[in-house]
């Protein structure tokens, strides 16, 4: 059942995101081509050409924004339409538990977030094709080495850092959407002002997150003090803080899931 739910969530969202991503990839290709063409001396200085190159570059930037922001926006809209409003009459009479329906949204969101990362990377790749040589890439990595060494140190080891990044990616991919889903469902409680309710829930959530974040950061006060006053390497405070902030993300995500689950069980409050 979960697979089926994900399948249809996927299809619903695909019809917007696939065009967005296509636009991004095409504009990346166009930007690359226009750059290649601009290297042709004949066209340098040609006003029309300069302007169109500028426009194409701007288009690429906008397309990137569209793809990245568009992904989360479309996911939010899909959740909103599917769980509140007229479509909810169909969603919640499907032979699936509320939890299954909720996981469907979350997993679908995670899949599309991953896809968006891949597409983004692809678009950058397309943009760079022909511009960046193997030698340049090597130079870039050579320069980056010392910075990475510092970071590995801060986390204790290279493995530790990679573990952190992987955990963080997984959590972000799943939890990114959770706070919006929570706000939407929480907002439904305030009949007549559901969207206002969602905004109110968002504010309350952010305040709570800030509060928790501050308290947790203060637990590392000793280390931070060391860094600032005794100028110990930033790394010693850096790593624990990063792990803490990741833990916060995870915990809030779980709490948001539980809250949504309870709210849905208590009353769907549709229409």
């Amino acid at each position, binding site marked *: 059942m979960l697979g*089926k739910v994900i*399948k*249809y969530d996927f299809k*619903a969202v695909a*019809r917007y995101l696939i065009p967005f991503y296509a636009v991004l990839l095409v504009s990346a290709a166009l930007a690359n081509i226009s750059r290649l063409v601009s290297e042709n001396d004949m066209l340098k200085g040609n006003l029309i050409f300069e302007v169109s190159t500028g426009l194409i570059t701007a288009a690429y930037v906008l397309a990137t924004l569209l793809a990245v922001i568009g992904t989360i926006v479309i996911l939010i809209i899909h959740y909103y339409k599917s769980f509140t409003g*007229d*479509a*909810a*009459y*169909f969603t*919640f*009479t*499907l*032979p*699936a*538990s509320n939890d299954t329906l909720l996981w469907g949204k979350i997993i679908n969101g995670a899949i599309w977030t991953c896809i968006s990362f891949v597409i983004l990377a692809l678009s950058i790749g397309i943009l760079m094709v022909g511009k960046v040589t193997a030698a340049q890439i090597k130079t870039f990595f050579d320069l980056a080495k010392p910075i990475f060494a510092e970071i590995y140190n801060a986390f204790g080891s290279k493995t530790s850092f990679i573990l952190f990044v992987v955990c963080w990616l997984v959590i972000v991919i799943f939890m990114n959407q959770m706070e919006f889903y929570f706000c939407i469902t929480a907002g439904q409680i305030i009949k007549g002002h559901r969207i206002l309710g969602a905004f109110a829930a968002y504010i309350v959530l952010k305040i709570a997150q800030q509060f928790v974040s501050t308290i947790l950061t203060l637990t590392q006060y000793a280390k931070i003090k060391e860094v600032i006053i005794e100028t110990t390497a930033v790394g010693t405070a850096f790593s624990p803080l990063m792990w803490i902030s990741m833990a916060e993300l995870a915990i809030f995500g779980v709490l948001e899931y539980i809250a949504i689950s309870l709210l849905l*069980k*208590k*009353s*769907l409050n*549709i229409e």
Partner: protein
Amino acid sequence: MAVIETKALNKKYGRIEAVKDLDLSLEKGQIVGLLGPNGSGKTTLIKMINGLLTPSSGELYIKGFKPGVETKLAVSYLPERNSLPEWMKVKELIDMFVDFYPDFRAEKAYKMLADLDIDVSRKLKNLSKGNREKVQLILCMSRNADVYALDEPIGGVDPAARDYILRTIIQNYNEDAVVLISTHLIADVENVLDRVLFIKNGELVLNSTVDEIREEKGKSVDALFREVFAC
């Protein structure tokens, strides 16, 4: 065993009692009319039956189960609103129903759609309003369910479409199922009903067969309704 059974069923919104102390036992093989003015509690009752609302108190059983995933498999719901994804083509909708509901009969749906000359490769949003409603009805009636809950199925359609809808309901009659029709257009559906339930202010004020009303009171259900619900 009664297909739908309620005991002292209650639904409250804050202080408003939408459904009050409802006792009901519906056996299979009936087409039942849920009659009452707007806001009387009919829709609330239907939503509790299809699992969209949870009762405040009391008991509700569909084929012996409390509302949940099993009952959603047994109940085929036709809401008053357009709840299906409008961007899907009709045949995609059929595939989706086949996916989710094991009791869905695709051949039946295709036949009914063909009889109406509805092009299954068109998107739902591109069909006329009348055809859209017919598609929703066909999808609902193509399931082999134990309960068909139809909320105002003939509300916004022309008389010819109304006839078609009522004929479809008759033709899909299943002696193992209960068809629940919630409506305020009584005169149009009387002939199709076995039994009627009058709901007034959330309470069940009458539970009788149509024949009993006509034989014992010598009047139509419509006429009796006007008396019971006189403003």
